[in-house]
């Protein structure tokens, strides 16, 4: 259980949010030219990092807007929150 600072609404309980999984997975520009391996990579393969991970979250029971988050999955500490389209504030 943790508190998330929505970039639009401020601090709210995590239960108001839904996780959208790993961030910065780029949708293929030419889907018709993708091989099966590339499709598998895009659709299914995930980093699933134990440690600092970049994620998408949605404030589903609030403003319903999407945003990005940097979170340590080993202790659930949030390092940064940033809007969609923005560059991650930490590497």
């Amino acid at each position, binding site marked *: 259980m943790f508190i998330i600072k929505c970039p639009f609404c401020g601090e709210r309980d995590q*239960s108001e949010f839904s*996780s959208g999984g790993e961030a910065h997975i780029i949708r293929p520009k030419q889907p018709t030219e993708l091989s099966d391996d590339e499709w*598998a990579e895009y659709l299914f*393969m*995930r980093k699933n*990092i134990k440690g600092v991970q970049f994620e998408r979250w949605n404030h589903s029971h609030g403003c319903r807007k999407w945003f990005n988050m940097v979170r340590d999955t080993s202790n*659930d500490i949030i390092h940064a929150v940033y809007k969609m389209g923005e560059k991650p504030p930490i590497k």
Partner: protein
Amino acid sequence: MKFLYCAAQLEIIEYSILIKYFWQNMKNKYSIFSLIKNAFSYHENWQRAWRDPEPKKEYDAIIVGGGGHGLATAFYLAKKHDMRNIAVVEKGWIGGGNTGRNTTIIRSNYLWDASAGLYDHALKIWKGLSQELNYNVMFSQRGVMNLAHNLQDVRDLKRRTHANRLNGIDAVWLNTEEVKKFCPIINTSPDIRYPVLGGTLQKRAGTARHDAVAWGYARGADEMGVDIIQNCEVKGIKRNGDCVEGLETTKGFIKTKKVGVAAAGHSSVIANMAGIRLPLESKPLQALVSEPIKPIIDTVVMSNAVHAYISQSDKGELVIGAGTDDYVSYTQKGTHNIVEGTLKAILELYPIFSRMKMLRQWGGIVDICPDASPIISKTSIKGLYFNCGWGTGGFKATPGSGDLFAHTIANDEPHKLNKAFNLNRFVSGDLVDEHGAAAVAH
């Protein structure tokens, strides 16, 4: 006279050999006799169930992860494939991960042929497991009932009973009255938020004591010479090109040509060390138990739609399974609202429990595959095998999973029962989609 004396002496020697053999055998075998023998010494002289060895320099194979699946794999590698120079490395203590954290439900009523084959293979081994291991795993075929709460549930569950029966798996459809008769404490009133419209019953299904499964397999494997090395965390996988050369661990480098990974929630962490990608996400799954009470529920009841499942342990605690959180986390915690949602459903279905106190709540990290089916597979690296992706339902498969994973490692080829559960299915698209269809509780 002299002759008679000699004969008597010979007989005494023979008897003493017999007695010695008997005692030795008793020393290793748990039985009523060993229980009586140890009672005379106030149970202070029981032999260790398994050794605590330091790692050797080299093994023929190493299993990463000392949970049920890993230990079962080592057991069957030694027993069926005669690979005795092997080890299990475990970063904590054996059975301390998901093996000791699940709600101990065992069933095989899965929809698809591949899953039915896999899980029923396990169920068949469960039946004779206590005898095979000489260790009481308290396997109890008390039946598992899956409730339907809406029309789509009814259709799905009926379809599943038909599919099960075509695969030789026992399954029956029960209407609401029959559900009530089988488990009288269920509230079958049509006025509740999600009324009980019926359910399926697998009578061969049930529960087992999860700790005993880990300990029984550990003891059995150790007896055949398998080294079980606890407090030994894998830090890296050494490769020579596309072949495995050994493991870097907190107890030093161990050489081996074959590594079988059964690391559940931490599978992706190990995969990253080897530089391969897995389609997994690790999420917290919670469970809780109540204070112990007298026997009240003699079966297992699962409700997928409202996400509540319940059974009663032999100690008398109600064992309640909650759901997963939707975000990746390795914290073995979970959020309160998940538990709250489950308890709301439990109270609506079983109003009799409204004044029960919950004793303990805990979380485990489950590795979930996109198709909710496991992976028991070779990888692109020679000598590296993965057994993962069991998600929220791996315990029931423990013996079958170990058996098939051992086969895959020993022969470098999958068994026909785990062929469909290869890593390549995410490339070919030949998924075993058990998500909504098979009463897989998520």
